């Protein structure tokens, strides 16, 4: 049978199941469902048919009708929570639009909103799918706007941008402007400076020099006072708290070089240093900006988690069902869950039984079967049946909410250890400032020439401050980061290399970090030959991890399978699946499933078992287990050799945790941990004085990752885990954790070498400057020479063996 693409959503289906329709120009349109057909006609009649040209080959989600919960958007409580009222009576809301795949989708949504009567402004962010809509409440209701979005096959839900996002966006914009000015200034000063240097060695008349000096002065002033404002602010706060920090050094160094240059410009003596002023400001500012960027990203993913959680639950009271907003659910209320619904309130199961996906809490991909009396945790998803449970906690105390709150907090309050470079430069700048003052005082006293004393005093700061010490850390970490990237390890910030090098404590998540995180077939036993196509067709109908494991196994064994159409597909909860192919009855599942069909199974194994039966006779058996990642044991042994304590944290039960721990050689195991337990464990380790590294991959690790000094996430892990982490392993190999340690330790060594060299340089150069021997030529030569040595030493990190 031919596969044909749906005219609206581009997904391919068999021709026989498509709705066909003759179009006026002799074309035939195919639709996979009524929803897609409806959207197509709506767009055509609105004159928005060009959407499909813009779409190209992108596939969309088929348009499905949504439940009727529109009234809630017009309720008073909703308005207070999400809607911002402008001074002129317009309403504004922030929405996250679901189902956007490409820029054509964004175009369509904006277009449709623009055409809607009463909508004054609508703009959608391409990267985050967040929309800002402004409308006139007298002409249109919010529910109508949401309905319009839904009618074209997308869904929208509101979120509250007030706290985090607005602030993050504002700082990002501010930095952007400051960096633009800084780059403009330094680039222009660079080419003027080239003329300057050429003139210095080739000889230049003072009158030309003056022109260049004034031009540099004009360019450097906005850079120092506008772009460099953050450093003055930082230095001021540092002064108030009696701390000398990197900002103090940058601010005082740049300012004194600037003042000295003005002096040199006015007296027409000596050299100006406007170029070093702008370069220092520009480089350090760009570094700071990168930090701001990564914070913004984390905020975006958090909004998406909170937004997708239901705001209402079905409460059963006196045999009637009612939708109640989660804040109004009281303890003891009976809540009904339908398949596919996300739990938002913790409770105890009272009626029915069903499987729950707890992967976002424990990290385990296999669903858990719950019976009456079992606890139900928020964040898990009800998979296959309708159950009722009693609320034992309020929404705001429930687990999901607690986790999100913890995350929000930890993003802003991540513990950082004091960086070596900051500390050294802190002491250093204090000492240099003191020496400069003493030099100035000394010369003034003994030579009684104020002018000469001032020049020499400032020259002490100028020669001491900028190049070597400023470059010592950034240069080494830059090379370290690029070497790490070559090993498929992404460090999000340069400072993390230093923190990681000092770490002596590594916590590893089990599922997804040490193991692959999904069951794979480890053993196959065939009782009777059978057609593997049948098994493939059967397991393809389910998304259960076990079925997927078998599907992957079959795909590896045989290159291609022709799809068979099965009928009467039935999923039996916590047991398996059955279906009919022609006259043949197919069944696949665990031992319970087989026993229910009258087939005896008396195998005992620690692995998960899957049986396949045709017409009531079992033909094959598969053993599945979560396999340990390749090289985990060696990597852990090497890390331990470095003197790092390795601990395993997992939400799984003890026996399987111990089995994995033994296989990879970890002695310390902590099982049965909820997300916040993991975080507490990390916190306790930190309180005991350890600098911790945590590696994990799931939502369940996110809080612990955020708490840890360094967080390592797997490249394919959950978005939150990646956004709160500091290091991402793209190849997901445990060996890469060891490599990360090795590279950071090597980089740290280079940083220390660079720092000690530049301090040595200063102990020679500063006394010379104090004695008044530093001519501009000496200053220029020694500065570039010392920078070159620092750069060369940093390049040695590249020689690290693979």
């Amino acid at each position: 049978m031919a596969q044909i693409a749906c005219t609206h959503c581009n997904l391919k289906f068999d021709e026989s199941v498509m709705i066909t329709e003759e179009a006026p120009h002799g074309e035939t349109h195919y639709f996979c469902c009524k929803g897609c057909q409806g959207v197509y006609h709506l767009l055509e009649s609105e004159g928005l048919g060009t959407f499909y040209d813009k779409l190209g080959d992108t596939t969309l989600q088929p348009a499905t009708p949504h439940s009727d919960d529109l009234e809630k958007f017009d309720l008073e409580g909703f308005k207070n929570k999400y809607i911002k009222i402008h001074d002129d009576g317009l309403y504004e809301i922030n929405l996250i639009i679901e189902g956007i795949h490409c820029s054509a989708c964004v175009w369509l949504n904006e277009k449709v909103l623009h055409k809607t009567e009463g909508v004054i402004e609508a703009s959608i962010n391409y990267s985050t799918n967040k929309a800002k809509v402004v409308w006139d409440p007298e002409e249109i209701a919010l529910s109508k706007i949401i309905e319009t979005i839904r009618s074209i096959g997308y869904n929208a839900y509101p979120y509250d941008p007030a706290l985090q996002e607005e602030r993050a966006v504002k700082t990002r914009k501010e930095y952007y402007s400051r960096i633009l000015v800084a780059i403009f200034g330094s680039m222009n000063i660079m080419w003027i400076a080239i003329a300057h240097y050429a003139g210095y060695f080739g000889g230049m008349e003072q009158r030309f020099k003056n022109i260049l000096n004034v031009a540099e002065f004009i360019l450097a002033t906005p850079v120092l006072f506008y772009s460099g404002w953050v450093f003055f602010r930082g230095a001021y706060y540092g002064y108030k708290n009696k701390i000398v920090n990197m900002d103090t050094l940058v601010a005082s160094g740049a300012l004194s070089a600037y003042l000295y240059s003005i002096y040199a410009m006015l007296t027409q003596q000596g050299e100006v240093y406007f170029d070093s002023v702008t370069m220092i400001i520009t480089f350090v500012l760009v570094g700071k900006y990168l930090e701001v960027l990564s914070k913004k990203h984390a905020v975006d993913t958090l909004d998406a988690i909170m937004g997708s959680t239901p705001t209402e639950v079905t409460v059963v009271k006196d045999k009637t069902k009612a939708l109640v907003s989660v804040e109004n659910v009281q303890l003891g209320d009976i809540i009904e869950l339908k398949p596919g619904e996300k739990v938002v309130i913790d409770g105890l199961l009272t009626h029915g039984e069903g499987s729950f996906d707890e992967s976002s809490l424990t990290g385990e991909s296999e669903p858990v079967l719950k019976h009456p009396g079992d606890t139900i945790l928020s964040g898990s998803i009800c998979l296959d049946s309708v159950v009722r449970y009693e609320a034992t906690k309020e929404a705001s105390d429930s687990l999901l909410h607690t986790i999100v709150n913890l995350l929000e907090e930890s993003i802003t309050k991540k513990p950082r250890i004091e960086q070596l470079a900051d500390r050294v430069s802190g002491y250093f700048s204090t000492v240099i400032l003191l020496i400069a003052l003493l030099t100035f005082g000394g010369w003034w006293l003994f030579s009684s020439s104020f002018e000469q004393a001032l020049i020499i005093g400032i020259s002490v700061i100028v020669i001491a401050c900028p190049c070597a010490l400023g470059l010592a850390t950034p240069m080494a970490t830059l090379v370290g980061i690029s070497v790490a990237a070559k090993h498929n390890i992404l460090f999000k910030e340069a400072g993390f290399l230093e923190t990681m090098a000092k770490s002596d404590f590594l916590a590893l998540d089990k599922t997804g970090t040490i193991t692959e995180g999904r069951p794979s077939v480890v053993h196959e036993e065939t009782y009777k030959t059978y057609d593997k196509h049948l098994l493939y067709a059967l397991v393809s109908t389910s998304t259960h991890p076990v079925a997927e494991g078998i599907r992957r196994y079959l795909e590896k064994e045989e290159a291609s399978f022709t799809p068979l159409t099965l009928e009467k597909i039935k999923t039996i909860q916590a047991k398996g699946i059955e279906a009919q192919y022609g006259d043949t009855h197919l069944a696949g599942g665990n031992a319970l499933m087989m026993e229910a069909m009258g087939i005896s199974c008396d195998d005992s194994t620690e692995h998960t078992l899957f049986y396949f039966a045709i017409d009531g006779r079992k033909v094959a058996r598969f053993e599945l287990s979560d396999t340990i990642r390749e090289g985990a044991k060696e990597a852990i042994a090497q890390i331990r050799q470095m003197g790092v304590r390795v601990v395993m944290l997992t939400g799984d039960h003890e026996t399987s945790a111990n089995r994995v721990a033994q296989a990879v050689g970890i002695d310390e195991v902590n099982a049965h941990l909820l997300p916040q337990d993991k975080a507490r464990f990390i916190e306790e380790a930190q309180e005991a004085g350890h600098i911790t590294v945590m590696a994990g991959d799931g939502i369940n690790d996110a809080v612990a990752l955020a708490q840890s000094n360094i967080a390592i996430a797997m490249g394919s892990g959950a978005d939150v885990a990646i956004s709160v982490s500091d290091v991402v392993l793209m190849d997901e190999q445990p060996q890469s954790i060891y490599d990360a340690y090795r590279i950071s330790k090597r980089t740290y060594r280079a940083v220390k070498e660079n720092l000690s060299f530049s301090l040595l340089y200063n102990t020679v150069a500063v006394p010379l400057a104090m004695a008044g021997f530093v001519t501009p030529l000496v200053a220029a030569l020694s500065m570039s020479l010392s920078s070159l040595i620092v750069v060369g030493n940093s390049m040695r990190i590249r020689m690290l063996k693979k």
Partner: protein
Amino acid sequence: MSENIIIVMIGISTLLGATGLAALLWGVKTGQFDDKSKFIDAARFDNEEELRDAAMMEEKKKARKQKQQDKKKNYMPAD
């Protein structure tokens, strides 16, 4: 060579650059760089139709302002 030539050369080139900088700063301030994908992708959809669309939105805003002013004028306290 006279100083004036150099002054004019440096002055004009810096001024040109500064114009570009001012444009960029204006762009940042009005939020044109907030969305980097839109910055790149939306250029493909930029045509006459979009211009009409933008004009229509402006019209809408104006119409609303007009309506509110009318309302104020015709406002009579209920007695």
